[in-house]
């Protein structure tokens, strides 16, 4: 079940920096992306591509590794795919996705590369970031364009810029309003397509408090994880996205009560004076699934 893989953090590493590439995966991020797009200057696109290729070929990484390619409408996009797919990244991250056709185009190229290299068909996935109103309008089409799709992400700064506004700090009360609708629509599209939703980078490394608020906000909206560019943010983001002991305990009790009710054939169930119905059971199952994937909960046989 690749789609249910934990992706609380998706960390970027600049693709032309060997020091960053070889160390990026050791900080515990759930997923790491080697970037040959924005973090690499035009004059170094060729060297970044080579470096990422050789890193993927010769190093072993403890987590999932994706590659952010240049968009296929730029002079580098197709070459990125041609060079990097034979190194078998876990997924291709496409920036500025705007249509399902782009995804189907990339899907075909991946299919061909998998055949030529003898990789398992369908093993290389796709993650797309939405950075424009057009992309947002087509978000569901993008999310459902290929069975390789694992997640859509919002590129916050780019999106805000394309709205001719700026990304504000994601304070739960006043901040992040400019992205509120876009973030929600990303979650709707991802959920309808049955894939994950990833929030954008929070770029002020020193401001932990606002980061926590922003992560709490996007978790509440339904996101599965958040992108980041600095290892310092990983633990903070994980803390918010990982169910607490209290949440785990409650979920556990919900499922127990539900199981009892099923066994006794009783219609209505209550726990601590609160009615428990199907959505709560589903949520409890999800809490335990995330907790189990995050290694803070051991699934019991009885549930």
């Amino acid at each position, binding site marked *: 079940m690749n789609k249910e893989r934990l992706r609380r953090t998706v960390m970027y590493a600049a693709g032309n*920096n*060997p*020091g960053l590439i*070889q160390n990026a995966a050791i900080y515990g991020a759930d997923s790491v992306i080697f970037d040959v797009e924005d973090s690499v200057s035009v004059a170094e*696109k*060729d*060297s970044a*591509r*080579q*470096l990422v*290729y*050789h*890193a993927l*070929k*010769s*190093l072993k990484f403890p987590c999932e590794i994706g590659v952010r390619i240049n968009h296929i409408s730029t*002079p*580098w996009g197709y*070459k990125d795919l041609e*060079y990097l797919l034979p190194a078998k990244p876990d997924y291709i991250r496409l920036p500025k996705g705007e249509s399902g056709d782009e995804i189907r185009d990339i899907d075909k190229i991946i299919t061909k590369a998998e055949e030529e290299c003898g990789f398992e068909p369908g093993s290389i996935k796709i993650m797309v970031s939405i950075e424009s109103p057009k992309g947002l309008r087509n978000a569901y089409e993008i999310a459902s364009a290929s069975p390789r799709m694992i997640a859509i992400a919002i590129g916050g700064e780019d999106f805000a810029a394309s709205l001719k506004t700026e990304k504000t700090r994601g304070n739960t009360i006043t901040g992040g309003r400019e992205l509120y609708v876009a973030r929600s629509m990303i979650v709707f599209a991802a959920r309808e397509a049955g894939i994950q939703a990833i929030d954008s980078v929070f770029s002020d490394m020193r401001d932990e408090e606002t980061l926590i608020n922003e992560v709490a906000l996007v978790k509440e909206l339904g996101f599965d994880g958040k992108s980041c560019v600095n290892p310092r943010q990983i633990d903070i983001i994980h803390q918010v996205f990982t169910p607490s002991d209290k949440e785990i305990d409650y979920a556990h009790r919900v499922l127990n009560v539900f199981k009892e009710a099923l066994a006794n054939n009783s219609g209505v169930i209550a726990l601590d004076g609160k009615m428990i119905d199907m959505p709560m059971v589903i949520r409890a199952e999800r809490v335990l699934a995330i907790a189990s994937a995050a290694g803070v909960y051991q699934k019991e046989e009885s549930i």
Partner: protein
Amino acid sequence: MAKLLTAAQAGTVESSDILIMLAPAQAGTGIQVELVSPTLQQYGEHIKNLIVKTVASQGIQDAIIHANEKGALDYTIEARVKTAIQRALGERGF
């Protein structure tokens, strides 16, 4: 067999990287490597051999290479040498 058209370089002198400067050489002079490295005594031979092997694997028989190594792992050395060669062959890979 390929022939280098011009001098070219790739890489940086940042930590964990290597700067490769590559120039065409007269036919028959072979692949000559001049290496600067903080770990010359320990890894000098290994790094030089890797550079020569990578250059030869691209079909180049004659080249003058100056390498300034800053603790690069093998994958980085290979990648930087290949990029320098592509650039010296006049292919920017775009």
